[in-house]
């Protein structure tokens, strides 16, 4: 199952999709929307995808992972549209004969998804909005306190930020 959906992610369906009598382990990763990013208070997140290509790229990643590790099943879902804080925006399930390869493949899949699957995240924070990676939707807010520890992100600065915060 490789799906982009506007609905809340249903993990039972994801687990069913990777069920296999040959599996001794099922590893899941669920990415959830956090209430802070780079020291700013995040109100909600909004995702956009190039849906057919995103589903195709997820399927291609699963095929690559299955060549690299002996897996029984892979399923990936990503939510688009508005996602309230604390809810799942991405979910991955991997089943394998043993846990080591299931953990390794699941980790690799989420890292690769964030690098190549055509999905974009828009962060609505107190005082503005920004497309993560483009920094085009609003001014870079001042950093307050310690930046939230998080996954590596491409950050670009430029003089083109035109939109004023709402």
């Amino acid at each position: 199952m490789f799906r982009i959906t506007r609905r809340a992610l249903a993990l039972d369906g994801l687990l069913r999709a990777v069920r296999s009598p040959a599996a001794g382990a099922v590893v899941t990763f669920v990415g959830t929307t956090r209430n802070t990013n780079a020291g700013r208070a995040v109100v909600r997140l909004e995702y956009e995808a190039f849906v057919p290509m995103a589903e195709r790229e997820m399927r291609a990643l699963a095929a690559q992972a299955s060549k690299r590790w002996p897996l029984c099943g892979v399923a990936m879902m990503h939510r688009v549209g508005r996602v309230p804080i604390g809810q799942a925006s991405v979910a991955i399930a991997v089943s394998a004969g043993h846990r080591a390869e299931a953990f390794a493949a699941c980790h690799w899949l989420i890292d690769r998804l964030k690098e190549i699957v055509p999905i974009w995240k828009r962060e609505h924070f107190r005082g503005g909005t920004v497309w993560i990676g483009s920094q085009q939707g609003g001014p870079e807010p001042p950093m307050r306190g310690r930046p939230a520890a998080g996954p590596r992100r491409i950050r670009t600065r430029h003089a083109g930020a035109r939109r004023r915060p709402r």
Partner: protein
Amino acid sequence: MADAIHVELRFFAALREQVGARLEREVRRGTTVGALWRALVAEHPGLGAVPVRFAVNQRYVEASHRLAAGDEVAFFPPVSGGG
């Protein structure tokens, strides 16, 4: 243009907000994706502020990829899926 071909353009996220989700263009046969992008940036200078990747018919391509009639060309700002 006798050797003109029709291509469909799609834009996403920060790029979409500047030029809209879809455009249609006539380009000379053999035009590269990179040359098309430079022409778009010349028309819409704000586009050049964001690093871009290209996909033709839903597959990633390099800037040197040459366009064929009916191609769907997608322009992506840096992707940022995940939690």
